[in-house]
């Protein structure tokens, strides 16, 4: 009997492997993708990248400008994410299984969250571009909307998971709804909420670059500008700064996380 199970396991492993190979073969045949050519072009591409994108002496001239836009982008992301978090918490409390007021409200909150979350950031940016034109506010809104959706969902799940026992206990003491939320639920989940918020800020600083490309603001705009003028060395410098900032942010938020846990 047990032998059968092992034989079955290895048979299904083999099946999965074959299926993956077949899927790859069929799809690359359809789109005419040749792995050989793609792989052989990698060394050449790397050489080109190093030759053109490495920062050069003239990039130093643009440093103050890069810095200004970088700070602008970071602050915009932080602002958009924090305001989104406030609204997300409100909707999450009203819509969580554990703390929601009634069934329609719970359903409504879930639909809202899923709508805002499932529309990609770039799609938001392009839609908003039409009505708000190219400026920083468009980027702010795009990031606000996606963060709002994502955070609402995460907050709701955190509350569902963590707060059940607390709610039961405080209900039994005769506490009212708002007392339970503020004295029990929020203290219980606050560190996890902050952890989500930090993750979202990290993510958004990275994504803000992409949004800036579309909305013509912040560091993304700068990259686009240099790139389209064939000033690849300066564009490379911009990229390096973005990478550095994102890494610093991650280190910082890990530190904060350790402090609050």
């Amino acid at each position, binding site marked *: 009997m047990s032998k059968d199970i092992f034989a079955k396991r290895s048979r299904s492993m083999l099946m999965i492997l074959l299926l993956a190979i077949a899927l790859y073969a069929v799809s690359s045949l359809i789109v005419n993708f040749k792995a050989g050519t793609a792989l052989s072009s990698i060394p050449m591409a790397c050489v080109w990248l190093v030759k053109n994108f490495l920062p050069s002496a003239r990039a130093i001239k643009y440093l103050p400008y890069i810095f200004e836009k970088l700070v602008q982008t970071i602050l915009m992301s932080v602002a958009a994410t924090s305001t989104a978090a406030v609204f997300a918490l409100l909707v999450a409390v009203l819509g969580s299984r554990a703390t929601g007021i009634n069934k329609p409200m719970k359903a409504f909150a879930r639909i809202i969250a899923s709508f805002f979350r499932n529309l990609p950031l770039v799609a938001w940016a392009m839609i908003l571009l039409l009505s708000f034109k190219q400026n920083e506010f468009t980027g702010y809104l795009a990031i606000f909307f996606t963060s709002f959706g994502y955070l609402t969902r995460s907050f709701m799940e955190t509350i569902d998971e963590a707060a059940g026992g607390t709610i039961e*206990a405080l209900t039994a003491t005769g*506490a*009212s709804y708002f*007392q339970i939320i503020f*004295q029990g639920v929020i203290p219980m989940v*606050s560190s996890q909420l902050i952890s989500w918020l930090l993750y979202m800020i990290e993510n958004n600083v990275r994504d803000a670059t992409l949004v800036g490309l579309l909305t013509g603001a912040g560091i993304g705009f700068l990259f686009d500008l240099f790139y389209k003028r064939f000033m690849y060395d300066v564009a490379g410098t911009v990229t390096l700064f973005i990478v550095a900032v994102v890494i610093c942010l991650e280190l910082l938020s890990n530190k904060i996380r350790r402090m609050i846990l």
Partner: protein
Amino acid sequence: MLQVKNVSKTYENGRKALYDISFDVSPGEFVSIIGPSGAGKSTIMRGINQLIPITSGEIVFDGQNVALASKAELRRIRRRIGMIFQHYNLVYRLTAVENVLHGRLGYKSTLSGVLGRYTEQEKEEAFLLLQKVGLEDFAYARCDQLSGGQKQRVGIARALMQHPSLILCDEPIASLDPQSSETVMTYLRDVTKQIGITCLVNLHQVEIAIAYSDRIIGVKEGRVVFDGAPGELTGERIAEIYHANPQAVGEETA
């Protein structure tokens, strides 16, 4: 002080948890409810303070039918009924004394409760209660740093902070080692006897029920099958409640 009259409960999924349960509890009594898992012990507890609404019957607490109470009345009833949980249900990120103060929320206006504004008198009482359960050195410790037994004693202090006339304990020692179980049960009995609070306790451990209670109620499959003094609870009666022979019960609860 508490009358449970012909109470039945059917859950929304159609499962029947309680069939026509009736018993009375007199003031100051320490009553244990024993019975196998799924017998309906927790449902009885939660019916009394309406964390779970009952399907039919009457639960009269201090002359008031709990099942018919309005929302505001229910709040006033609940604040006079303390509750202690198997998994403590504290706010673990707050300190012990803050958790004890939560026992006052039912007496506060919504706003001052939301803001956590307590009077000096209430704070002093919270420290006093922590002293009473032997946790005076842990008043400022965060609850996730306490041991299981200590958490449960914070739970007891929180219940006492409500100035209850009845305390419901839902499996208070099911997650504790024998040593802490004894400590928690001793504190529970001594403190409630001292203040004259009625205590209704769900228990898995028959020996502990016999050792600590004034009276024992045996529940099986949603019905009361035993109601009497610990002395009347013979091996035979225990076997009846647990559906097994007396020797096996001894092993199970050891």
